[in-house]
Structure formats: C-alpha cells, structure tokens
C-alpha cells in the first residue's frame, strides 16, 4: 500500500518561496493569481496493514515540523 503525505506551511506562516513564485507568475502575465503557497509531497511505500495513525505518527516525529507546518494523509 502507499500513502501520500502533503506537507504545507500553516496558515499565517509567511512563505517567501510561495511569494516569489507568485511574483514570477505575475511577471509572466498570469492574471488572477491571488496567492501561492509552496509545500512538499512525500510518497511512502508501506507494508499492508499500516494505518493512518501510523503515518500520522511519522508526520509528527519527522515528516512535518508542527511549529510551522501541517500535513494531510491520503492512503491508497
């Protein structure tokens, strides 16, 4: 089984990289972009029977920094 973990900055945490991407999109003439936030996608190849709680524990321990980031888990 696989899990996809999406790690993003918490709302309210400034994202200098997202802002730079936004700037670049503006420069390319893409109008109507209200904001850009950059995150990470981590794909895990897991033993069958691994639970969402197990993956959440991995997020808490390493994959995300709870001070600045949140995460979303999708099991497939």
């Amino acid at each position, binding site marked *: 089984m696989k899990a996809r973990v999406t790690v993003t900055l918490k709302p309210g945490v400034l994202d*200098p990289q997202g802002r730079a991407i936004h700037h670049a999109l503006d420069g390319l003439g893409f109008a109507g972009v209200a904001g850009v936030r950059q995150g990470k996608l981590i794909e895990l190849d897991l033993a069958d029977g691994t639970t969402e709680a197990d993956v959440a524990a991995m997020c808490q*321990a*390493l*994959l995300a920094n709870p*001070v600045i980031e949140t995460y979303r888990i999708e099991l497939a």
Partner: protein
Amino acid sequence: MKSAVVVFPGSNCDRDLAVALHEITGVAPVMIWHRDTVLPQGLDLIALPGGFSYGDYLRSGAMSARSPVMRAVVDAAGAGRAVLGVCNGFQVLTEAGLLPGALMRNAGLDFVCRDVALTVANSQTAFSARYDTNETIRIPVAHHDGNYTADEDVLDRLEGEGRVVFRYAEAVNGSARDIAGIVNTSGNVLGLMPHPERLIDDALGGSDGRRLFEGLVAALG
C-alpha cells in the same frame, strides 16, 4: 573547560569551532560523531557546528536532530550542561525541541554571507557575559535558512523572559523581531545563526566572536 563538538555528515564549520574552542579554552575539544550514543564524561560544553548536515534534506537540521547522539545531547541539556548551536546547530536545536520556533528560508530567498551588525539584547547569560547589553558587535552570517519564526505568544515570552540574546541591527533574513540568537528557559542552551567562531582573531578581520567563548570559560571554568 572541557568541550565537545558534534560532527554530523555535512557539517562544515566543525573544525572552525574546534580551533576556536582549543585556542580560547586551552584544551582541544573532543570531536563526537553523530552516530555515537554516549557523550564523554565531565563535559562542560557541547557545541553543534554550522554546515549543511544531510544536505538540508527535508528541512534544515531535521535529520540531524534525529541522530543517535542527539538523545544524549537532549539528556545533557536537561541536566544543565551548556549547549551551543551555531547556524545549522541552531536549526538542529529547534528541530530537536531544545529551543522553540523554527528557522525558515530567508525572506529575500538569497543565501546571505557577510558580516552583520548585531545588538547584544541580554548580557546576563553565560554565553553573552563578556558583552554589554545594547552593545553593537559584528559577526559573520552564512545561511539560507535563518528566518526565525515562532507564534506571537512564544515571541512575547522569549522577549519577556530576556531569552533573546542577540538581535540583528540591520535587515538580514526577515527574522521575527530581528532575532539572531535565543536561549532556553534555563539559559544553558544557546542557538544563534551568526558564526562567532569565525571572528576570534584580529588578524582575520575581527575578534567580536571571541568574547562569547571567553564568557563560557569564565562561567564554566
């Protein structure tokens, strides 16, 4: 004073730190590999060096903070041992939970590598005792991820408790409240982005960093 420098894969300021400690304490520090699980007996100071440990994979300092040696460092810090984290060492200390907050990508996205003016915000710590409060000093920085971030209440608490030790006196990286260095609640763990070990000799451009180590020698023997 007996000191140790932890070496992670990708550390690159470990030898600079060792030279500074050797010269100023008179004793060569013990170099500790990150896979070691036990620290030498009788250490007064554990120093985490600058560099790009693990290539900054995942987040700066994230992998090193989970290295085997860090369990021993966390225990030693809890027992009151002095711990100094410079640059990547500061990032490791926040990732390990020894200091609050996080160090994010510089606001200008640039790698900043130059001497910067710092204000000593609190000279009442073992790390800053040889400076005067509100004194301006110059210390080099060399980092990409030095933009200090924490919740507003954490920032208020750091300031209220005098735990902001060094502040940038000029725009450097977008750090909240211009924070360049902080201590933990008991004052025995300091993390700072600037590199005092790079400025310990006037022949190499200045010696403002030297007093940080001299203060530690005075405090720790």
